[in-house]
């Protein structure tokens, strides 16, 4: 696997090459696709290692690849965008999540920023984050049926009326 000139990717390959499945740097964004079971361990390493020092989780989201023409492998992918405020380098980490069991470890203990972002992914994709301290819907309401950003959720679907709340 290649590091594409990214110091963080090189460091990650040296220290945890066995947990990496692939790397690429499409459009200049250094990316590592990692073993889902080890994602939290790797994220903690990336935060604490002085050569990486990714102190900020810039973004966390998921992608549903159901019926994607070229994608092979598990249906979902959780995508982490890391930023180091010291060196300003960026790194993208991706981990596959299957349809069943639709879950992955939570990284809230690595960065508290992940709390609401993981809640949003849970809300819109139905991916469960193990060990999340407060996994409940964030943008939609509790009674909402289904997870609207899944590709098999039709845009026109109506939701039952739930009436007023106390």
């Amino acid at each position, binding site marked *: 696997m290649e590091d594409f000139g990214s110091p963080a990717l090189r460091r990650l390959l040296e220290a945890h090459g066995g947990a990496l499945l692939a790397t690429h740097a499409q459009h200049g964004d250094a990316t590592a696709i990692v073993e889902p079971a080890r994602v939290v361990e790797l994220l903690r390493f990336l935060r604490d290692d002085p050569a990486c020092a990714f102190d900020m989780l810039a973004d966390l*989201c998921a*992608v549903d690849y159901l019926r994607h023409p070229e994608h092979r492998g598990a249906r979902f992918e959780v995508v982490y*965008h890391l930023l180091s*405020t010291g060196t300003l380098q960026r790194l993208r980490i991706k981990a596959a999540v299957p349809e069943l069991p639709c879950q992955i470890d939570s990284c809230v203990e690595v960065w508290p920023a992940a709390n609401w972002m993981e809640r949003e992914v849970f809300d819109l994709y139905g991916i469960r984050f193990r060990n999340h301290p407060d996994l409940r819907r964030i943008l939609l309401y509790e009674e909402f049926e289904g997870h609207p950003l899944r590709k098999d959720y039709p845009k026109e679907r109506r939701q039952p009326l739930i009436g007023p709340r106390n």
Partner: protein
Amino acid sequence: MSEPLRRSPEHEGDLHAETQILNMGPSHPATHGTVKFLIELDGENIVDLDIQVGYLHRGFEKECESGTWYQAIPYTDRLNYNSAILANIGYCLAVEKLLAIETPERCQWLRTMAGELSRLGDHLTRCGAACLELQAMTPFLYGIEARELTWDLMEILCGARVTSNYVRIGGVKHDMQPDFPGRCRENIAKIRGLLGDYDDVVTQNRLFVDRLRGTGMLPKEELIRYGVTGPLLRAAGVPLDLRKDQPYLKYAEVDFDVPIGEVGDNYDRYLVCVEEMQQSLRIVEQCLVALEKLGPGPVNVDDPRVRWPAKGRVFNAMEELIQQFKAVTEGPMVPAGEAYQAIESANGELGFYLVSDGSAQPWKVRCRPPSLINLQPMPKMLRGAMLADLIPTFDFVNMIGGECDR
């Protein structure tokens, strides 16, 4: 007169000592944004706070996935409706990254200028509304009058005041009108005057300063752990500004300063925002000079994948007619791949993570909303503080419902 009541230890047990739950919102006159706070109060002190967002969720990402790449641009206007152009720019830069397009120089200057006018309008709203919500009507009107002047400029430039829809993939909708630089300079002079008036009544005002100083603080390490960016982080002393640190458009060629604060309380946030407005005005002036020096030229990239043929040719030539038909009905085909592009919006890092499967429809349009992410540590900023501190803290966190809930 009887003896004054004196509290004795044996009567303590009779007093209500349990905490009280207060619902604030989703629509409250002292918050500019649709959000609900569930506040646990001990007297007037905040014990805990749960923030419930999502009241403005419109399925931005789902809508984007069901249209063409072009059709997502008007939706980005409605993310942060105070600075629509910045979201336009962020999205289009991300699509251009996927297409590997470099836009013409004139377009980049126009985008930089329009983006800064947009940021100015956003900061004016934040600072103006903060005064209103702290019960000061006059400075709010100064701020809103200045914002009207920026919106007037938007109207001349794009035809719309708020949801401007000005930026296109590979360019902008059209060049600025010949009289725009003159009008812009006139309005900038007026805005400077209004900012001076605003500064006179607010910055040293005892009532205002006392409400802001020492409230809503969080150490910078904590803010970074929570992913907070923008004026909030800069007020805490971290000079992170993507315009300087990872320059895009023409920011590497303009001269401006990144103001930072010392302790990161609401007063520092206010000072940073006020200084950023002055810097935005500086950038707009430099853009006008650069545009005048550059002279007329193309504002759209000459790439058949995204360019619409000239109208005159469409009516007279078969090839261009077909191209126009394909461009309108299908829109551009974006090569398969993924890209993340972040820009410095008025609230912090506004990122777009796009995934394309090679078709004319986006596979995934993720917007990294600074409003949502900056709002997350607010309970931490306020635990132990007074209920009244919630108002200025929320003002300067500046959560914008459209962007927060998408």
